[in-house]
């Protein structure tokens, strides 16, 4: 099967999985135990954490810690069960903050700003918070799939406690101007004479794919996932800026044994952590070379699509080698043919693509939320599929897709 659905998941690196399984079996102690086995497991876990931090923030950076940190430490990095949990921790922490405020008798209005193109892991949580009484402002993207920092700034209110904007959109590949957004938030907050609210960045589609440094960009927290870059399912990470011990102001809703700097309680999965770190390190190796290859594939795809009559790369006018878009993700509309029908037909031809996010393509209603938010008409949005490449995609994959898509579109278009 020609696999062009890397944005939903990637084939795991079996060497990495095997190595991680061995490490976890050798160091099977509970990292919280005081005996030698526990200490050994703790050491390996911290090793994985440093390695992951180096992959995320660059090898020159001091390794962050889950628990304590020197003043120069780049925050805390906590392993989670995946990107969705990493997103949910800062969002659901708002509930605890709201209830705390109520307990103090000073019922405080809390406010959240989120872009309309967030992944369901953020968007659905935001809808939940809204239904529970927290004020939520959604900010629509521009037609190019990017969020205007000025509009985010304008949405910040004096009670805003969190702003959520993703780093790379999972359907369009649009790279969001996170640094400018952080600045706009700071300006808006200073107008209210207060510190800026936390900026949470879902960086699941960015890690290992584009050069994105959540800390340098001025984010307050960021979510990562292992299985998008050939790591295992069930492992992700949450990075939180600032020092440990409450300075970050992030009090999670879930409690337990205080693991992972109390951000994510539960006995740690050394196997998952080790594999995630190894996969992220591998993705960082030869990063520039990989990115160049991805740009070549992107260009080949866009050039090929331009010779299929009627096919439209989204957002309209997207060109190859445009730094505003991840080279790994591209949505294409085939007007007159429902995206799910084309995806089904391509699957029969041995090519795996998806319609939008795999997490929402089962639901007719929610499926086209992101493209519609960009102002695309329903019939165009409904005719889109997402082609996503990864480490291991080849020109032959792109050519096979182009040939099969052209044939299916000609045959099935109505």
């Amino acid at each position, binding site marked *: 099967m020609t696999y062009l659905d890397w944005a939903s998941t990637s084939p795991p690196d079996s060497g990495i999985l095997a190595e991680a399984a061995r490490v976890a079996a050798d160091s099977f102690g509970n990292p919280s135990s005081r005996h030698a086995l526990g200490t050994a497991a703790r050491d390996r876990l911290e090793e994985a954490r440093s390695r992951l931090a180096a992959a995320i923030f660059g090898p020159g950076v001091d390794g962050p810690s889950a628990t304590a940190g020197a003043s120069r430490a780049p925050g805390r990095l906590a392993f989670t069960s995946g990107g969705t949990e990493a997103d949910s921790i800062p969002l659901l922490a708002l509930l605890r903050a709201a209830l705390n405020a109520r307990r103090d008798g000073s019922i405080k209005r809390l406010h959240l700003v989120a872009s309309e193109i967030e992944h369901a892991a953020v968007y659905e949580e935001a809808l939940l918070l809204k239904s529970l009484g927290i004020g939520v402002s959604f900010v629509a993207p521009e037609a190019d799939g990017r969020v205007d920092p000025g509009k985010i700034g304008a949405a910040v209110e004096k009670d805003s406690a969190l702003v959520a904007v993703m780093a790379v959109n999972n359907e369009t590949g649009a790279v969001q101007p996170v640094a400018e957004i952080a600045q706009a938030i700071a300006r808006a907050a200073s107008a209210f004479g207060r510190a800026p609210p936390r900026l949470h960045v879902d960086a699941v589609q960015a890690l290992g794919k584009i050069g994105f440094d959540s800390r340098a960009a001025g984010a307050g927290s960021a979510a990562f996932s292992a299985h998008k870059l050939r790591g295992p399912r069930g492992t992700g990470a949450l990075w939180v800026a600032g020092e440990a011990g409450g300075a970050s102001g992030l009090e999670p809703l879930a409690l337990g044994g205080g693991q992972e700097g109390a951000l994510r309680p539960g006995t740690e999965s050394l196997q998952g952590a080790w594999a995630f770190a190894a996969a992220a390190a591998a993705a960082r190796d030869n990063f520039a070379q990989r990115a160049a290859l991805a740009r070549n594939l992107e260009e080949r795809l866009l050039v090929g699509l331009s010779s299929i009559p009627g096919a439209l790369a989204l957002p309209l006018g997207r060109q190859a080698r445009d730094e505003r878009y991840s080279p790994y993700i591209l949505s294409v509309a085939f007007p007159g043919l*429902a995206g*799910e*029908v084309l995806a*089904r*037909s391509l699957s*029969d031809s041995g090519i795996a693509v998806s319609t939008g996010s795999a997490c929402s393509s*089962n*639901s*007719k209603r929610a499926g086209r939320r992101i493209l519609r938010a960009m102002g695309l008409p329903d019939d165009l949005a409904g005719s889109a599929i997402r082609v996503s490449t990864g480490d291991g995609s080849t020109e032959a994959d792109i050519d096979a897709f182009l040939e099969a898509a052209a044939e299916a579109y000609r045959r*099935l278009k*109505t």
Partner: protein
Amino acid sequence: MEAFYLIKIGEILLKLGNRKEFEDRLRSQLHRRFGAAGIAHKIEMFPGRYFVTVPEESAEDADFLLSRTPGVNGYARAIKTGKSVDSVLAAAVEVARGRIASGKKSFKAESRRSDKSFPLGSFELSARIGDAVLEAFPESRVDLHHPDFTINAEIRERAYVFADPEPGLRGLPAGSGGKGLLLLSGGIDSPVAGYMMARRGLALEALYFHAYPYTSKEAQEKVVSLAKVLATYAGGMALWTAPFTETQLKIKKDAREDLTTLMMRSAMMRAAQILAERIGANCIVTGDSLGQVSSQTAENLRLTQSLTDYPVLRPLVGVDKEDTVALAKRIGTFDISILPYEDCCVLFSPKHPMLKAKLERERRAYDDLALDPLILDSLEKAERLDVPFTLTR
């Protein structure tokens, strides 16, 4: 232990010349269903009453089976006993024991006696049953107008005692009305139409038009699930899946846009006509409801009807949608029907569909499309799936 059921039959009793045929059909239906469910069973037939004996552990399944068999008016767990007064009274106390244990208190007794040699008259027997139950359960009381339960004693070839039969489906045994070809989509209406006609004694085969890749495999699996539910009423059925994509694409290409839906419905009726002939059906069944969608106006039904000489039975034609939905929920098809998979009509959604076809003009438009070769090819490739009776609840 064995569970003994008394089965009441209704409409069959009204049949004069061919009553035996109906009775044989119900018997063979029961036999086949118990057999398909793997339940050891013994069926006895006496005039006006059937009896089934199954192992005690199959009692729950037997309840389900009897509740879904058309031709069964009602059924009850019963005690059969000898025709002595003492044994009838003892059985009545046993029947009452179960009811009183479940919290019921007031009762009445009703007796029927077809064997006039029995020493007590009906009224007298009922009174004796009342006395016996009151004596055995002092907390009980007689209430002739609003009893919590009614003890029935019937003195026939043997004596039978039971309480409050469960209602059956009524209707006529499957197959007594011949075989109908049901046009089954994944929607709410057609399964209900199939259920209604199965209840009137039609054996069913169903035809589903699959427009892959426009419709998904999940949509096809959904139709199989619907057929499985219908099979519990029809006593098993066959499901034909005909690939219809090529026919639909030709319609889309060559038909005037406002006629596409109507032409597709006509083509489906033509396919049904051919398949009905092939399988020996004597009618076609659809879920049409007057005016519900554009293809279901009387004018448009006249056009689609013109493609077949079989009677097209449309049991929902005068049924309000909300009533259909309620019935779909009751028979267990609704939750399947509302699964979100596209049905075969997605290809066509003309903005302004033709509402009132002129028969001759639109029939000419249909004939000009010359779809027969594609329809025949589609039926050639159609796959038949045998959907047996199961205890699927």
